[in-house]
């Protein structure tokens, strides 16, 4: 396997930095609403993971997908956009500071990127996508 021990260590490091940024964005201003961003991004891969096994049996033609897979992708996109939009909306209505908004967005992107990169690196592949 190409992805080895170094990848695991690097990814866990990035994940820790992401969570650190999010928690710092909450704790510095004693306003714990940006923690919702972490929750959102952790939940983001869940729909795809749940619905990935519903479609695409061996008899379906190449590139054809079924409705549950579509639903999973739709929900994924919704959750990811929610993760980015939530801090912006909160900062716009002056519930949190702009700095906290930026920090939680960067942290959330790191967390989500880590999850995606982990899934891509350690996929049990004999299935595309």
């Amino acid at each position: 396997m190409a992805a080895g021990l170094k990848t695991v260590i690097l990814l866990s490091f990035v994940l820790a930095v992401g969570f650190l940024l999010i928690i710092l964005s909450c704790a510095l201003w004693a306003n714990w609403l940006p923690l919702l961003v972490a929750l959102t991004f952790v939940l983001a891969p869940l729909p795809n993971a749940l619905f990935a096994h519903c479609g695409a049996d061996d008899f379906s033609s190449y590139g054809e997908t079924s409705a549950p897979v579509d639903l999973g992708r739709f929900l994924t996109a919704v959750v990811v956009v929610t993760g980015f939009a939530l801090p912006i909306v909160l900062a716009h209505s002056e519930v949190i500071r702009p700095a906290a908004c930026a920090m939680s967005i960067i942290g959330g992107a790191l967390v989500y990127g880590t999850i995606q990169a982990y899934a891509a690196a350690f996929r049990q592949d004999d299935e595309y996508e």
Partner: protein
Amino acid sequence: MSLPRSDYDPRRVCLNPFPDVNLGKHRRTIGIYLAGALFALANWTFLDAAILSAHAHPPYEDPQIPPPVHVTFADWIPGLCSLAGMLVVNLIDKDRIRGEDSGFSGDSGAVWRARLFLFIGFALMAGGLAGSISLLVLKYVLKDYAEQYTYYGYANVSQNVALMLSAIVLWIAQSAQSEYDYNLTL
């Protein structure tokens, strides 16, 4: 009746104005992700206005008069209409609308009912859009509020536009390549 392919259909007057975008096998996936993103963006635009309205305050140097207008339940109605319309449109089996040439839906009553529900869905979405525009004009523009408050109305309109775009993108993405010609000339 099976329609001839639109390339050499002699009854056609106008050429197909849609560009032939070929994204390959990922076209459906990209379209669905895009539709989901548009959907979330639409709802967050409106929620932004609602949260902003709940936290609204005059500028600090001004005398503390309360804001003249808030986002009330009336502002929610167009978005709810669009949501219901999108739900109805996407619940319809797309093979039913095409009618007899799909083979297994011989019952013409089912086709008629499917088209009726499609009409209701699109009417709900268009009604939501029209409602949001009329809300913008009647509640915000005509009353000469400050720009801070007319933003609520503009957010409402963009919510409904984005919801409609999301439904259209989803519809196009979910119709497979072989049905592509038919759905664009519907």
